[in-house]
């Protein structure tokens, strides 16, 4: 039996086998993304509003935070926060009895990802706030709305609608960024993500094409799923504008044309 026939008979079963093995690691990547979005989203909105605020102090604080986290690699940020957390271990976490929790990658990973993604998303939302139609804001003020009413009925819905395609793109980037967590934080037992497990499988049989392709397939599949789900939300956000455009090419339809910029 020569190598070609072995490859031919086992090619598909090897792929299926890898898909099964890498399913659980994929859940870790999904966990990191899912744990980061619910806190990253409101934090990003808060930072965007802060950057837009008239107070010099608040806007420069938010601006500085956004600049720092967008201007440095996530890889360094993960290392930095992990080492800072370690430095406070003896003096702070241990006496409080929360050292296992604080230093656990399943806590620290999302913590850093939240800071990172909120900076990128805040810049997106900030841009969207600036792009809210001035006429609508003036009209809302003219009919005597209070500041919070203007925000709720004009700024918020417009901002969300304008920012959504870019925010979708940011969520996909965030999902891809989860691949970096276990390169920097300690791997505990079998808690491994896609890159980690693919690397481990590679070290057993040196089949780089098989294992990395299956891992890439998982990333691709989940990215497409994110585009699909966020596309549904975008549709809902634009429902009221449907009559403005012709029925075939509705404004609410998000095109599957991923933006390449983070």
């Amino acid at each position: 039996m020569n190598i070609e026939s072995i490859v031919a008979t086992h090619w598909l079963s090897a792929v299926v086998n890898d898909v099964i093995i890498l399913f659980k690691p994929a859940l870790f990547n999904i966990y990191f993304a899912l744990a980061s979005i619910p806190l990253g989203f409101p934090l990003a909105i808060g930072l965007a509003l802060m950057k837009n605020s008239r107070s010099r102090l608040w806007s420069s604080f938010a601006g500085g935070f956004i600049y720092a986290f967008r201007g440095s690699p996530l890889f360094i940020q993960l290392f930095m926060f992990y080492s800072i957390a370690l430095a406070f271990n003896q003096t702070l976490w241990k006496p409080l009895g929360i050292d296992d929790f604080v230093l656990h990658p399943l806590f620290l990973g999302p913590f850093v990802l939240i800071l990172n993604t909120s900076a990128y998303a805040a810049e997106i939302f900030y841009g969207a706030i600036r792009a809210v139609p001035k006429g609508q804001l003036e009209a809302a003020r003219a009919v005597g709305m209070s500041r919070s009413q203007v925000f709720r009925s004009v700024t918020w819905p417009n901002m969300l609608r304008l920012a959504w395609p870019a925010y979708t793109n940011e969520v996909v980037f965030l999902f891809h960024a989860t691949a970096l967590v276990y390169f920097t934080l300690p791997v505990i037992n079998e808690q491994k993500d896609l890159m980690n497990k693919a690397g481990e499988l590679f070290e057993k049989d040196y089949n780089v094409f098989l294992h990395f392709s299956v891992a890439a397939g998982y990333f691709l599949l989940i990215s497409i799923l994110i585009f699909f789900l966020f596309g549904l939300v975008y549709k809902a956000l634009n429902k009221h504008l449907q009559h403005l455009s012709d029925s075939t090419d509705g404004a609410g339809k998000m095109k599957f044309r991923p933006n390449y910029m983070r």
Partner: protein
Amino acid sequence: MEGLITSLSELTGTNLSYLFNGKHLAWYASVRFTILAAFFGAVLALLFGMLGASAKRSSFAPFRWFGSGYITMVRGVPDVLFFLFFPLAFEQFVEYLFSLNACTVAERASGKWPPCNAAQWYLSTSEYFVMACVSLGLVYGAFAANVIHGAMRAVPESQLEAARAYGFTKRQVYWHFQVRQMWIYALPGLSNVWMLLLKATALLSLLQIADIVQWAGKLGAANYFPAAGLVHGDWRWRYYIVLFLFYILLTFLSELFFRKLQKRASRGMALDQ
């Protein structure tokens, strides 16, 4: 130098010579990997970007599919995956070529990798470095291809029509009008790609390159032996904060550079704004 350091140390009351010992000098010198990888990565990314964009615009369908596939593929998968995959795949490809001559048929059929010891390719830092640059070029070339593709289409069609009307050949219209004017539309996007690429250079340590990140981890690790230098606990956090600030500084300098470049490139251009 030695005298300057001691007098500065006395002046500030800190141990400045610690920051200028051999290991630290090696750390500062390792910045070259970051800068060179970013530079060569960017040059290759521009090259692959041009090729990718040209392929996507090609009138020959398979080229078009290849261009679109390249751009979409790299976008759907994390950069770190490509960054690790490409060097490993290339290494195996070369080892496969080695094995054709070096190994017997029986060894090649055994299914082991590498088939025999003679086919093993031992990579040095410089070879890893070249592959890291190519990986960066490939990944960010796809991003650049997308930017350039968009910029090509942003060049006003009337300009090209006018050029054709004056009797310029197809090639002249492409190079002297479309590509010449494309840059101004591509620059904001390309500056964005550069920022991404710059941040991705932090990953060099994953390819066994002793870059600033790897050195920071080594220098910051706790040292309890006076013979090995200053005795200190775990100082890694200090070193990573320095790297954090270093990358922010690089981003800031890049922004200044691209602002200047944008101004320069816009000279004499008929732009709307």
